[in-house]
């Protein structure tokens, strides 16, 4: 009987471990140990907390906080970047892209050429706002009409 | 092997018994000395172990007991008799404080049992054995483990000592050979005997039997009567039997209370009750079909009823 209970508890913990490592994102995200940088956007579109931050398509961090600055009328997005990716130049550009036409939105970092690197608490100077589909369509339509 | 118990040498551990007045006793076996649980001091002098005064108990509107006085003498067999549904089992539950009365008191060994705190009550119950109608054996334990259960719960006896004690108790009820069986494999009479062995496992000062003879064949009935009698004599137990089996109960009881409708209808020794003046008690004890309790359930006139339409 004790053996069966032991097996049962072991199987339960094995299942929990499998769910944690294989099914959830626990193995891919080391939350907490990263450094925070800020980026300002005129429009963040559908960006969420926990949206990915990518550089050249590689996941380097996640959006950890989104605030609105009522003085400058801009969104302030806090990005938590993993410590191993600490070589982003200070003139890096942050853009909001969409994965596929209708997929999730993410922040893309495009490195610049400066020697100094971004550190904890720095703010990215250059940013491209989200492409909002309606606006693009509207622009195409007005361009066509004005031709 | 020899055992030294309370200063006396026992040739072999057949039955372990402590003198009633001993505060505690040492059980010395081969290579081990064990302290048995201390007994509470009874108040000596009084030969009435349980004193029930003015007991009143209601269930909703129904009055089960109405100002009942009862005395249970130390070392004697006292029987409570009465028709089914008069609350005989309820009386046992009141004495053991499984139920609380609406008025009146129950004194066990000079202490009001309903005024005890839970630990005190549990301490008291260790000295009160009770034999339930169904046996109330734990269904997932063997006969041996059932008898060992109170010992394991309340003592720190080593395994060998528990084995000696359990086998001695089972031997006393004649079921040592059934030690490995499960309760489901026992007949009703055997289950009651195992329950009896369990009830005396902690060497109580008293034991209560709830309808011990109901539904027994003549042989197991005889076995139970003999057991109750010998238990009472050999162990110096105070016994209370609740029953409606007149003949069997009269054969062993020292004193009988006949109760009905929440009152004591009659009392006395079996011989006294034989010559009772109470018509009701006579009808009950002799099992007469008609008397103060009528054969017919109250109804209107028979002829009128028949030709009504």
């Amino acid at each position: 009987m004790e053996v069966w209970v032991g097996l049962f508890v072991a199987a339960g913990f094995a299942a929990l471990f499998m769910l944690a490592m294989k099914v959830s994102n626990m193995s891919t995200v080391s939350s907490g140990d990263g450094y925070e940088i800020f980026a300002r956007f005129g429009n963040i579109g559908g960006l969420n907390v926990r949206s990915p931050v990518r550089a050249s398509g590689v996941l380097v961090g996640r959006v950890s906080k989104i605030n609105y600055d009522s003085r400058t009328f801009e969104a302030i997005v806090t990005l938590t970047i993993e410590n191993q990716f600490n070589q982003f130049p200070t003139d890096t550009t942050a853009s909001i892209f969409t994965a596929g036409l209708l997929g999730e939105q993410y922040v893309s970092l495009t490195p610049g050429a400066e020697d100094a690197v971004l550190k904890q608490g720095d703010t990215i100077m250059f940013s491209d706002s989200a492409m909002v589909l309606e606006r693009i369509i509207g622009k195409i339509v007005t361009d066509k009409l004005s031709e | 092997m020899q055992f030294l118990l309370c200063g006396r040498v026992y040739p072999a551990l057949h039955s372990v018994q402590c003198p009633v007045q001993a505060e505690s006793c040492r059980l010395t076996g081969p290579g081990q000395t064990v302290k048995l649980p201390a007994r509470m001091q009874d108040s000596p002098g009084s030969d009435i172990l349980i004193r029930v005064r003015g007991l009143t108990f209601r269930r909703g509107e129904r009055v089960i007991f109405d100002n009942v006085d009862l005395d249970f003498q130390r070392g004697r067999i006292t029987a409570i008799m009465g028709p089914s549904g008069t609350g005989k089992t309820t009386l046992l539950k009141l004495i053991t404080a499984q139920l609380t009365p609406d008025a009146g008191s129950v004194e066990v060994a000079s202490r009001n049992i309903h005024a005890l705190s839970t630990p005190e009550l549990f301490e008291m119950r260790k000295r009160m054995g009770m034999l339930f109608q169904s046996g109330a054996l734990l269904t997932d334990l063997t006969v041996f483990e059932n008898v060992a259960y109170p010992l394991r719960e309340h003592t720190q006896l080593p395994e060998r000592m528990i084995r000696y004690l359990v086998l001695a108790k089972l031997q006393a009820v004649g079921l040592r050979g059934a030690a490995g069986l499960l309760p489901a494999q026992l007949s009703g009479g055997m289950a009651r005997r195992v329950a009896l062995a369990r009830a005396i496992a902690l060497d109580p000062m008293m034991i209560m039997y709830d309808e011990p003879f109901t539904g027994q064949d003549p042989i197991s009935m005889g076995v139970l009567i003999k057991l109750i009698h010998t238990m009472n004599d050999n162990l110096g137990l105070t016994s209370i039997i609740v029953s409606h089996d007149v003949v069997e109960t009269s054969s062993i009881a020292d004193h009988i209370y006949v109760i009905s409708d929440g009152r004591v209808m009659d009392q006395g020794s079996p011989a006294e009750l034989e010559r009772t003046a109470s018509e009701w008690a006579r009808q009950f004890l002799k099992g007469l079909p008609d008397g103060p309790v009528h054969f017919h359930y109250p109804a209107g006139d028979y002829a009128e009823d028949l030709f009504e339409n």
Partner: protein
Amino acid sequence: MKTEATAVSANGRLDAIANAGRRAFVFLERTGRAGLFLLRVLQSIPAVLARPGLIVQQVFSVGVLTIVIVLVAGAFVGLVLGLQGYNVLVRFNSEASLGTFVGLTLVRELGPVVTALLFAGRAGSALTAELGLMKATEQFAGLEMMAVDPYKRVLAPRMLAGFISMPLLAAIFSAVGVLAGYFIGVGLLGVDAGAYWAQMQSAVDFDEDLMTGFWKSLAFGFAATWVALFEGYDAEPTAEGVGRATTRSVVSASLLVLGLNFVLTAFLLETDT
């Protein structure tokens, strides 16, 4: 004649109202008793921790004996999710998201809920029947007369066992379901294996999804065991009484689990944003 008729119907209405009131009163009274019962069981739990043997024994009868049904049900639910998810997703050309669908559904909702329903049906009914039978055969009274507290020796170990077993069973259910979804999606329908796991990992969050499921299963285990124990301990000590209590135990526990799931989902989703 007419006034008499109205008097009768008014009487009938009054009776109906009185009846409803009585039922409500009985319900409240039962709920109150169940609450007091839970309190006493919880108070007795510290005493049980000193006797791990009792808990192991109950984890066996509550957890181990439920594992087969959980394995089978988990596998079938996973297979259906894989098949159904694939059929829907393939229309949008996004069958690669099958992992997301299977993983999220199992970990957040179906794992805890279905496991709790199975738990109520298998372990809960067994608990109720066992306790009801113990009551019918005077075993509780017998224990009390042996100066043994049934709350400490009988009820509290079962409560703890339910509490321990449920999350483990739910985890096993979800894990088996995910594997079954993998088998259908990747093995039979040709979804890319890497995509299945990668999509699942990117969508299922450890804190928000996995822990939500874990807390839910803990709450469900607690609720289902509580209902089962109370119904058994409160059962009428007759054969029909035990039968009725067993049915009621499964029905009430299942409804409680579903209701609790709604409340917890709303509550846990709210704390997310």
